[in-house]
């Protein structure tokens, strides 16, 4: 399947959430030489990052975001028909993180709740899944949660990742229909499993449950392999999505990139002829937060929103898997965009390992 479309769902609100702890790459101790840090910051663009404490999980970030979006919209918990949690940093191998959040939000026992194990591409897959569910019968309201804590699985001695990652969660409230039945959302969803080891945590899963090498509990990233992948895959992803939808680049208000690395995003923008004015960057403030960087950038990217029409957004998500996807969706004028942060942790509730 190259591209697909669904009946458009209605995005009622998006709330992003980050931990309270802000880490300044240039002015706090990282264990690396100052010149080296400056070089990485210049290239990757990550000035500050938000770091979860050792006790804060993706579920906590998504729960806070979900509470905010439900409250903002006045949605009663029992009105939510399904909860989709997209994450590769779950609380437990089992049960699903979605079940924990279902409990904490006091959702009804008629609510479907499940996890989707995707990372950087997860938001586009999650939106597609939610839209598919909403165009069938039965589901009216869906909460799509996407949260990751990549800073917690980055080795602090690995320069390739130590200065890059931040943690974030998000909640997107979607509703069926909401008007013109002819409106469509367009998606392109792709995979190349041959690159599975370009971004991987080798240890701790059932393939290698208790590795002798402790570094295997941390993420390993082949930076050049990932860059090769993005150069090859993202430009045709943009072209094929626009072609399938029958629209041009000028019809898109904003291109929302997965905030992988400033240098890479700028290279892609130049290569694809996209004006930077229509590409919001949040990586400088929040770091690379994995897949949740997409909803975080919608919420915190200072999007200019006209009062008389929805925004047309092309979401571009790519990375671990290797997996990549796009979503051409509209953001209604009335959609509520919020951003919250977790309360600061006290000393007794666990510090942040940096």
């Amino acid at each position, binding site marked *: 399947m190259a591209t697909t479309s669904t009946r458009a769902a209605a995005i009622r609100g998006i709330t992003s959430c980050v931990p309270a702890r802000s880490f300044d790459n240039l002015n706090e101790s990282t264990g690396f030489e100052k010149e080296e840090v400056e070089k990485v910051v210049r290239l990757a663009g990550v000035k500050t990052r938000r770091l979860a404490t050792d006790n804060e999980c993706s579920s906590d970030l998504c729960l806070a975001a979900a509470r905010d979006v439900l409250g903002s919209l006045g949605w009663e918990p029992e009105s939510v028909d399904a909860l989709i949690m997209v994450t590769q940093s779950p609380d437990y191998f089992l049960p699903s993180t979605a079940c924990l959040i279902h409990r904490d939000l006091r959702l009804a026992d008629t609510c479907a709740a499940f996890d989707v194990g995707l990372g950087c591409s997860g938001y586009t897959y999650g939106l597609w899944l939610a839209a598919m569910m909403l165009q069938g019968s039965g589901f009216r309201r869906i909460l799509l949660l996407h949260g990751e804590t990549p800073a917690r699985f980055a080795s602090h001695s690995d320069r390739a990742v130590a200065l890059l990652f931040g943690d974030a969660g998000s909640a997107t409230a979607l509703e069926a229909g909401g008007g013109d039945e002819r409106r469509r959302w367009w998606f392109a969803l792709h995979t190349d499993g041959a690159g599975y080891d370009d971004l991987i945590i080798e240890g701790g899963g059932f393939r290698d449950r208790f590795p002798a090498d402790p570094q295997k509990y941390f993420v390993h990233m082949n*930076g050049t392999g990932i860059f090769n992948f993005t150069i090859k895959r993202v430009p045709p992803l943009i072209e094929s999505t626009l072609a399938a939808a029958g629209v041009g680049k000028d019809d898109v208000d904003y291109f929302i990139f997965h905030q992988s690395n400033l*240098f890479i995003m700028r290279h892609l923008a130049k290569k694809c002829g996209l004006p930077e004015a229509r590409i919001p960057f949040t990586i400088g403030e929040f770091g690379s937060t994995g897949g949740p960087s997409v909803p975080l950038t919608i919420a915190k990217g200072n999007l200019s929103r006209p009062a008389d029409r929805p925004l047309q957004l092309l979401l571009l998500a790519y990375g671990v898997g290797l997996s990549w996807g796009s979503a051409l969706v509209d953001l209604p004028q009335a959609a509520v965009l919020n951003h919250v942060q977790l309360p600061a942790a006290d000393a007794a509730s666990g510090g942040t390992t940096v």
Partner: protein
Amino acid sequence: MNTQDATKWIAELFQEPSASVTPDTPRDAVAAWDSLGELTLMADMDEKFGIVLTDTQLKAMHRVDDILQVLRDQGKLTD
């Protein structure tokens, strides 16, 4: 672009004086040719020549001439 111009371009890319970079210059003599330098090399190769370097090609590059050889193989050098 000929070999001389390409060598000059590589020197500029890695912020080295032109005179200090020749095809025989080893990678470890070029300070900026580290993992971050590889990314800038990849980006420039893509932008200037439309060549997307693979991980295997990058790992096989030990001196400046290995970069030039990729350009030769792709018919990008005129001499």
